[in-house]
């Protein structure tokens, strides 16, 4: 397969650090060093509006609040040490026209709240699946969890200080209230709420340099295994991308009840193991990784200017006593479940995706434009130091 460019969006005058695809509407937002965020349509690939004036320094990260109707809410994280919450009403047409505004007037984005507290650069912002929690992380080595008590009233419910260095990325589990963070200290940490407190419940060690980005596997995607329920991909300055799997968890309300315990409950703990390393493609730091909800594929990008797509295939089963070789390549074999012997392979690799520039972010999106051939079709968005967002399709 190969990556074929569909189009590029009009460039920002400066580097784009990251992009975020709206969970339900055909919208994509950018985070740029020019201190703005631009919202563009994924139907027409036209710029719709620009959010500016809220931050004094580079915007590093953007995130769409999920699970809300009638309104779009965007969180921005900036080097100016703050996070911003922006709101815009989506008219009723919003859903049918997919966010394409009725006229050429830019719809008003309202800068609703400034979240203060971090000592210095905010590196990433992320909403929990239900939209009630927002996580932020910073060079000040902390991860903050904010809860929206009522509209525009955010309260800090946790300041997690487990990392020993700059925290680069935060992301939430797609279903559970499980938070993950990755850091300049080469580790990934996971957090859950324990009675009243948020605590670190797992430490993932193995990378040998900064872990730039992490992303969870999405439920329902191919290869997703219910019983395992969680996998995480991490990419690093050490040029590798690792897959981690949860093998056990304790202290959970649902599991603890059955077990009599001396104290009020078993400690909140999860055990994660390093399951696989993706084939090495990148020759410089891997900055971003995204796990598709539709195909289960993973896309990565980095300082070498490459974009690469990986697919998990049921590997040649070890010469075992039982199983027949799996006939279907597209469907995971049931028998593989007990002994997952899948293998990751590179299905597409593109050099110079943003000409000679570094590629900072990648994200999967449902395909919305006129070229769409089927419902489940997906595309990849990438952003780079050239200030450009490009859209890609995978073709045979």
């Amino acid at each position, binding site marked *: 397969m190969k990556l074929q460019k569909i189009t590029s969006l009009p460039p920002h005058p400066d580097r784009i650090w990251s992009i975020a695809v709206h969970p339900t509407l055909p919208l994509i937002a950018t985070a740029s060093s020019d201190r703005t965020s631009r919202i563009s349509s994924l139907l027409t690939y036209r710029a719709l509006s620009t959010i500016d004036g809220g931050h004094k320094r580079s915007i590093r990260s953007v995130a769409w609040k999920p699970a809300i109707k009638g309104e779009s809410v965007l969180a921005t994280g900036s080097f100016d040490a703050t996070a911003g919450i922006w709101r815009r009403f989506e008219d009723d047409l919003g859903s049918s026209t997919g966010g394409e505004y009725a006229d050429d007037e830019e719809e008003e984005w309202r800068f609703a709240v400034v979240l203060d507290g971090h000592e210095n650069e905010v590196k990433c912002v992320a909403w929990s699946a239900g939209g009630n929690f927002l996580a932020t992380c910073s060079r000040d080595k902390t991860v903050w969890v904010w809860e929206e008590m009522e509209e525009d009233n955010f309260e800090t419910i946790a300041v997690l200080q487990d990392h020993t260095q700059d925290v680069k990325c935060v992301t939430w589990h797609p279903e559970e209230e499980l938070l993950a963070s990755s850091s300049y200290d080469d580790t990934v940490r996971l957090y859950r709420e324990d009675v009243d407190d948020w605590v670190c419940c797992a430490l993932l060690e193995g990378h040998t340099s900064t872990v730039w980005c992490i992303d969870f596997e999405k439920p329902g995607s191919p290869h997703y295994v219910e019983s395992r329920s969680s996998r995480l991909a991490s990419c690093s300055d050490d040029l590798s991308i690792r897959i981690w799997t949860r093998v056990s968890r304790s202290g959970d309300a649902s599991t603890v009840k059955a077990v009599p315990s001396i104290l009020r409950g078993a400690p909140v703990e999860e055990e994660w193991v390093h399951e696989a390393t993706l084939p090495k493609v990148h020759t410089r730091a891997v900055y971003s990784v995204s796990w598709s909800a539709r195909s289960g594929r993973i896309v990565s990008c980095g300082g070498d200017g490459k974009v690469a797509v990986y697919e998990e295939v049921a590997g040649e089963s070890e010469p075992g006593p039982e199983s027949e070789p799996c006939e279907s390549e597209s469907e995971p074999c049931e028998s593989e479940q007990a002994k997952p012997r899948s293998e990751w392979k590179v299905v597409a690799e593109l*050099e110079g995706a943003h000409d*000679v520039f570094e590629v900072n972010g990648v994200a999967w999106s449902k395909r919305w434009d006129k070229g769409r051939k089927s419902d489940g079709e997906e595309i990849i968005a990438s952003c780079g130091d050239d200030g450009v967002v490009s859209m890609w399709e995978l073709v045979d």
Partner: protein
Amino acid sequence: METQNANPTILSISDLPSRLQQKKTAPSALLTGLTPAYVRDPFATGTESASDDESEDDSVVDRIDEQEIYDLIATISDPEHPLTLGELAVINLPHIQITDEPSALTSRVLVELTPTVNHCSLATVIGLGVRVRLEQALPPRFRLDVRIREGTHSTGDQVNKQLNDKERVASALENETLMGVVRKMLETCK
């Protein structure tokens, strides 16, 4: 501020390798091209024109070699001595390496710094100055790795990690105090 190294070894300017002298009358394409800032130039005052970008780009121009990189950065001033990084032998020609990436789309420039004393707390600032200078001067196809030469600094690994963390460098470039220092260091660049 306490001086880190009161008596550094100083090389004579005339002994330093340079191509700048010969080129004074006929500046190379690269040197005349220094004015348009390429990427994220914090000092940029004007706007860059697209045509400049193209004519400067890549293979059209003479191959940039180690000597040209040396000439770009050896003239940077030390933050605490009235001397250049070349004179203090912080920058040395044999410690600059250019390698083309296999794809040939990009090239890697590796600059190894030798701090004057192995506990020099200014190593990070010096490294940042070198990065800024090269990011300004070189076309975007160059990937920069600025490192402390192995065994010459007590916390070399930490300094290296910071200097090559894109996000930290970008953030430092937005820090006015730090950029004031760097700007001063670059004043002596030709």
